[in-house]
């Protein structure tokens, strides 16, 4: 095991896949000379040259669309969108093209395209640079959606994403880039559609999405230490495909479920997951499914407001206790 930062794990995945397959190349704003807005692609231009590490103009929709075209023609592009809010400029190409061309052309083409982007609050970047949009992409058939929360998963899932023949929305988290973690040496691939069990427990299932998987783990620690509650923490890692079976199995064991996400509550990942759990594990539930989500507001700038606009451990602890009929 090597210990590395999340951003280094992402970079290592890119490097390994580019060395392995000549067709893999990168496109994005300031990924080359500048080294990436979050320094994920630092040094790659020097190793791979301008043919394969392509600085683009600020034209998100067209960069993604070019990725679609290049992928349809047989290349394997990895497009970086500087932050997830900018992906909204590319929503036309992501949905109408990347996700749909295979289906609407009757299966004649494949779109092996990866679109990487970081999300998340906590850096006082206000309403245009801080959101979490897993739910927007999760909504779209034809896309695969990954949201790794550890360096190991960041590397393993990205390698799997690049090798998959479907368009993948690969959601990184700005606050995780500097986090360290153990990453298995050598060929390390994490298949999509397999949830990770972060902590075993018997009393309540907590599902954490993206960075919230980490928050959920810390909340579980506190639940055990202060309240004697043993929470089971599940990180789905990918939302399409979704390892619903792992979540249902856990709920059948604990009879309680809390879903934690950083994004907005309405139409969110939690709304979707809680519906699935209610539909498919209703008889096993001893309490309504609890959702902990970001506040239903555009992300504010001021630190005091931003802090309370996305979930922290106390809300998760309170939600878990609520499913047990207890108060914090």
């Amino acid at each position, binding site marked *: 095991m090597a210990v590395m930062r999340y951003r280094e794990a992402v970079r290592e995945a890119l490097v390994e896949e580019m060395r392995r397959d000549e067709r893999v190349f990168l496109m994005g704003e300031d990924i080359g000379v500048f080294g990436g807005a979050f320094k994920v692609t630092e040094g790659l231009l020097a190793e791979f040259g301008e043919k394969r590490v392509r600085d683009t103009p600020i034209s998100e*929709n*067209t960069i993604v669309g*070019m990725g679609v*075209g290049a992928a349809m023609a047989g290349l394997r592009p990895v497009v970086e969108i500087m932050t997830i809010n900018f992906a909204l400029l590319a929503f036309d190409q992501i949905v*109408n093209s990347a996700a749909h061309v295979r289906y609407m*052309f009757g*299966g004649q083409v494949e779109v092996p395209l990866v679109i990487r982007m970081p999300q998340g609050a906590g850096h006082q970047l206000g309403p245009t640079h801080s959101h979490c949009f897993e739910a927007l992409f999760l909504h779209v058939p034809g896309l695969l959606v990954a949201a790794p929360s550890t360096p190991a998963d960041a590397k393993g899932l990205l390698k799997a994403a690049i090798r998959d023949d*479907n368009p993948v929305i690969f959601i990184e988290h700005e606050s995780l880039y500097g986090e360290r973690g153990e990453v298995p040496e050598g060929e390390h691939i994490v298949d999509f559609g397999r949830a990770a069990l972060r902590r075993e427990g018997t009393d309540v299932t907590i599902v954490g999405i993206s960075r919230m998987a980490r928050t959920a783990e810390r909340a579980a620690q506190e639940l055990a230490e202060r309240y004697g509650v043993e929470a089971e923490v599940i990180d789905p890692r990918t939302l399409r495909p979704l390892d619903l079976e792992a979540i249902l199995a856990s709920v059948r064991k604990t009879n309680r479920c809390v879903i934690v996400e950083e994004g907005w509550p309405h139409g969110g990942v939690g709304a979707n997951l809680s519906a699935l759990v209610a539909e498919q594990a209703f008889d096993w539930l001893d309490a309504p499914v609890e959702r902990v989500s970001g506040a239903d507001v555009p992300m504010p700038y001021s630190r005091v407001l931003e802090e309370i606009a996305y979930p922290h451990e106390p809300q998760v602890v309170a939600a878990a206790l609520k499913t047990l009929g207890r108060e914090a």
Partner: protein
Amino acid sequence: MSSPQQATAQAALPTPEELREWLYTMLLIRRFEERAGELYGRAKIGGFLHLAIGEEATIVGSARAIRPEDYLISTYRSHGHALVRGSEPGRVMAELFGKVDGLCRGRGGSMHMFDLPRRFMGGYGIVGGNLPIAAGLALKSVYEESGEVTLCTLGDGACNQGTFGETLNLAALWRLPIVFLVTNNQYGMGTAVERHSAVTELRLRGEGYGVPGVRCDGMDVLDTYYKVSAAVLAARERRQPMLVEAVTYRFRGHSMADPESYRTKEQVEAWRKRDPIKVFSAKLLEQGVIAEAGIEELDGKARAAVEEAVQCAERSPFPEPSSLYDDVYVLGDQVRGWYSHRTFEPEQGGPQQPSEAYSSGWVPRQISEALERGSEARAGEEEG
């Protein structure tokens, strides 16, 4: 840097045989579109139907300026582009009928034709949505040094989309071998070019991005062929992206649902006098390339091909309800089946039916019931 006009001289002169084939293809597109319009009126074809009647010279003249290995990518007015690339008319018509033998197995319909073996890279329903994809195709040609040129058609309306500026800039910046063919049929749906563009000479719109533009007479197949050939040469030999504005006119409405309140009968009549098929036929007669009887023979052949296409579309079955989930994803180790539910048994679907192996239970029971209802309704229809 040689100008496009100079390069014109380098374009091969079409042989008499080629000229006759062009006329035939223009007639085929015309007869196909006329028949499609008729069948739309009889509810054989659903959705929107955008006919290219009047634009045949632009379609054939430009498409004959590229090689079979080059990419052609078009818009939602795309039947003619499929036909000019050699797609079987029966499969184009079957697509309009929503039948399983359609080019896209009934998934795309009129706006979304696609024929990969013929490198017809699709019709796209979003105005300007095909430009970035075209740039991606051209990027592949540069990346692999495979030598193809991409011919990207767009309408006058698409010149006002963000993708126009973004893609032209990138094409020039990265020196992509791509020709943007602006099919200026004078209207973005019902909005006249004077009412949607401050600069109405659309060939100028690429200059500031580093994409030189020329205008051609889109009602004249030869002029279109020469101007596009010159542009293709610049793209292929010098990796200089080019824009060609073909000034043309569609004789029918934007779609079949168009009352045409935005233009006068007199204007339509004036343009009809310049009908590209009439003009080209007259020229070929005058040059002795073909005789009256020869034109009639080609027209008869085109009409017969269209009739055969209609029969083919009629004969083709509708897609199986169990194919609903086919090709949403490429299946493999990671995506082992589309969010399946247990009612699809393996024998019901094709090679890509949702597998039970991956049962996240996403698709609720209601969908399978709806599918069953659908197939019952279909069975009833066929009996009646």
